[in-house]
């Protein structure tokens, strides 16, 4: 698709973030949607396309009083909402709809009107070939590749612990972040063991929250304040079974998704001012930095330790504090995009000065799939 032909014209998160016991899952979706509509100066009647995951887009349309000409319920895990943006851009480009609302809401902590964590159905391949061996949610699946990666590249537990330390520095600059107190590598390594080699502070938060994004064609974006353009997108998928990924040294889905987005946007790595990498666990930013091509294989841990991604560094990463310190409701991809959009609008709590290009990179499941989006505040790159 031609770069910069679709724009984000409304974006907002839920009114509160982290602990929201007074709203259900669909209520969080609606709260975020109304905030994004207000941000764009629109009403539900202006929306003709809706995409969401977790909640049915049909239920959400009815809840908000929207009569859609286009819906998308792509549900692949945490980066579903990023795929929705990509799919919505294509649908708008194809003339199937004009103004799309993408929402996320999840009562991950308070569990109000929330979907249960998906359990493989009887006879599903995961149920036959993974469940009998003790997998029990993301902390026991997403973590499995890490020891191999660490052995291949000589990454130590101390180096892995540096990821949450640096992200906490960013969180300290963000009043909405759940955890803001600085931590040290020693603090991370002294925190409770969850699933070796992962300690509590290497694992994401469990939060209530949501967000929403409104997209339309760039030729209409001039009617809106602070449009943020979609310069390029990519997506890929590999396996829902973590045991069947091609390699634990690198994510094939990350590489394909990232390369597609960079190629479509026509940008080089040196052009990128700000980067978001979905961080459900501390090792994912390492894979992200390498598989997107910002670091050579095995060099990301040193890159982070040398403070290139930290406040004051040349490549600010996860400037909201990330899933490790900001918030993580279960499917974190919406928050990845929200921070990229804030940075492109110049309104982020830890604003990167003069940032013009932000790359948002998401993961589905446990390296199961991926989406990458290049955002820019420049009408033309």
């Amino acid at each position: 698709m031609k770069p910069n032909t679709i724009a984000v014209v409304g974006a907002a998160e839920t009114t509160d973030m982290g602990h929201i016991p007074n709203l259900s899952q669909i209520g969080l979706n609606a709260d975020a949607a109304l905030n994004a509509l207000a941000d764009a100066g629109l009403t539900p009647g202006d929306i003709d396309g809706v995409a969401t995951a977790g909640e049915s887009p049909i239920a959400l349309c009815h809840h908000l009083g929207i009569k859609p000409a286009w819906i998308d319920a792509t549900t692949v895990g945490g980066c579903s909402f990023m795929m929705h943006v990509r799919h919505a851009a294509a649908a708008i480009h194809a003339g199937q709809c004009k103004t799309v609302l993408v929402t996320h809401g999840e009562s991950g902590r308070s569990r109000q009107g929330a979907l249960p964590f998906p359990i493989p159905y009887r006879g599903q391949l995961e149920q036959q070939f993974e469940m009998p061996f003790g997998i029990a949610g993301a902390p026991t699946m997403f973590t499995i590749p890490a020891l191999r990666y660490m052995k291949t590249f000589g990454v130590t537990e101390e180096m892995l612990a540096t990821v949450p330390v640096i992200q906490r520095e960013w969180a300290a600059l963000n009043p909405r972040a759940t955890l803001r107190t600085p931590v040290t590598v020693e603090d991370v390594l002294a925190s409770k063991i969850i699933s070796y080699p992962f300690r509590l502070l290497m694992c994401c938060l469990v939060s209530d929250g949501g967000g929403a994004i409104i997209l339309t064609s760039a030729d209409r974006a001039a009617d809106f304040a602070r449009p943020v353009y979609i310069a390029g997108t990519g997506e890929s998928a590999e396996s829902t079974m973590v045991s069947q990924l091609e390699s634990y040294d690198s994510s094939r889905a990350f590489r394909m998704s990232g390369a597609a987005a960079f190629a479509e946007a026509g940008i080089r790595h040196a052009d990128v001012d700000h980067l978001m990498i979905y961080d459900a666990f501390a090792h994912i930013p390492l894979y992200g930095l390498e598989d997107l091509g910002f670091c050579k294989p095995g060099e990301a841990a040193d890159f982070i330790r040398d403070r290139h991604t930290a406040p004051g560094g040349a490549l600010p990463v996860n400037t909201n504090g990330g899933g490790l310190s900001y918030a993580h409701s279960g499917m974190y991809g919406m928050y990845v995009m929200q921070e990229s959009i804030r940075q492109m609008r110049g309104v982020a709590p830890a604003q990167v000065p003069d940032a013009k290009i932000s790359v948002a990179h998401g993961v589905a499941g446990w390296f199961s799939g991926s989406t990458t989006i290049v955002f820019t505040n420049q009408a033309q790159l």
Partner: protein
Amino acid sequence: MDASRPLPTPTPETAHFWEGTSQGELRLQRCDAGCGAAYFPPRAFCPRCGSRDVSVFRASGDAVLYSYTISHRSIPGFEAPYAIAVVTLAEGPRMMTNIVECEQTPQALQLDMPLEVVFARQNDAITLPLFRPKGAAR
């Protein structure tokens, strides 16, 4: 001891695998259309070339430890700490399993250590393929 762990529900395409483990055989499949690749989990066609010309064969049961995590939260059938492992079979495919006859510690569980399959009977229909250090005391 593993009576309460979740057990697989075989499907028509996987029945040969679970019949095999019940008979003390680790069965993989291979493409007979030329590409020759061994593959897992079971399916009625080759995932590399799409050919339906495939056959079942008995694997050696030898493997090496590819990666693992040690969960520190007990769940039904698993007393923490317990390791969830992924092994690379001598024939190439990888599978998730548990490592038995071995301490569940980072010191004992060394990546690339040689392993061999053991068959852990759960009931009349289901026997799980687990792995132990190669040459462990019988």
